[in-house]
């Protein structure tokens, strides 16, 4: 499940690139009881998401287990052109990480 690519899109309109990203991750806060085992599921959530383009970091998101399952992020920035690469990388509390990139369209 953790190696699923990030579903992401970056669109340029009027000099502003709008990014939408959906990361597949359980985002367990550490207080939920498993339907299967009846035991409390340990914390398992993304702590940090970075969005980079053109060698600069445009966004650093620091997250908690309060963020909903399969985190969705939307944001926008200036200073990129069509075809430029936008890369998103995440790391969770267990040290797992994932990364995907897309071209600005």
């Amino acid at each position: 499940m953790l190696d699923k690519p990030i579903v992401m899109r970056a669109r340029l309109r009027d000099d502003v690139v709008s990014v939408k990203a959906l990361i597949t991750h359980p985002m367990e806060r550490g207080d939920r009881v498993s339907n299967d085992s009846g035991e409390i599921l340990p914390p398992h959530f993304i702590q940090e998401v970075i969005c980079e383009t053109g060698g600069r970091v445009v966004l650093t998101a620091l997250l908690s287990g309060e963020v909903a399952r399969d985190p969705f992020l939307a944001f926008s920035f200036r200073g990129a052109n069509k075809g430029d690469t936008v890369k998103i990388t995440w790391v969770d509390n267990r040290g797992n990480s994932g990364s995907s990139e897309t071209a600005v369209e």
Partner: protein
Amino acid sequence: MSVDPKRRFFLKGALTTGAMTMLAGAGLLTPRSLLAVWPKEAFEADAIPQALTLLLGDSQTRESGSIRIKLTPHADSSGSEVSIMVKTDLPDVESISILVADSPTPLAASFRLGAGMEGSISTRLKIAKSGEIIAVVKTQQRLFSTRKSVDLTGCGCE
């Protein structure tokens, strides 16, 4: 962590994603851009002023009409989710943080804005009860905030 940057660059290029993940899991390798330390104490703080001080170095916020919060609750199979958009036209924004007033650990997420970022961020939170959501915007000058109530009784979520 004392890893020679050149060696790390070589490792990044040479290893497969799976091996990278294993190494990262073992604490041997951290993606180069992810070296910021996740502020554990701020996220574990049980009071808003404490969380803000630990996260942003200050807890004094000024109410601002230049921050807007849009909240859209959804019923979900495992509880309830709320889509949140925080938008500000304040100048020189460094970060936008979202806190859930009634949560045992109020700080939910914080977004550091790099050069060129617009003052807007959207995400979704798990929110179990009706209550207040607080957005705190850090500018180069000070902290500004605004708050908005989310009502989960109407959507069948609560």
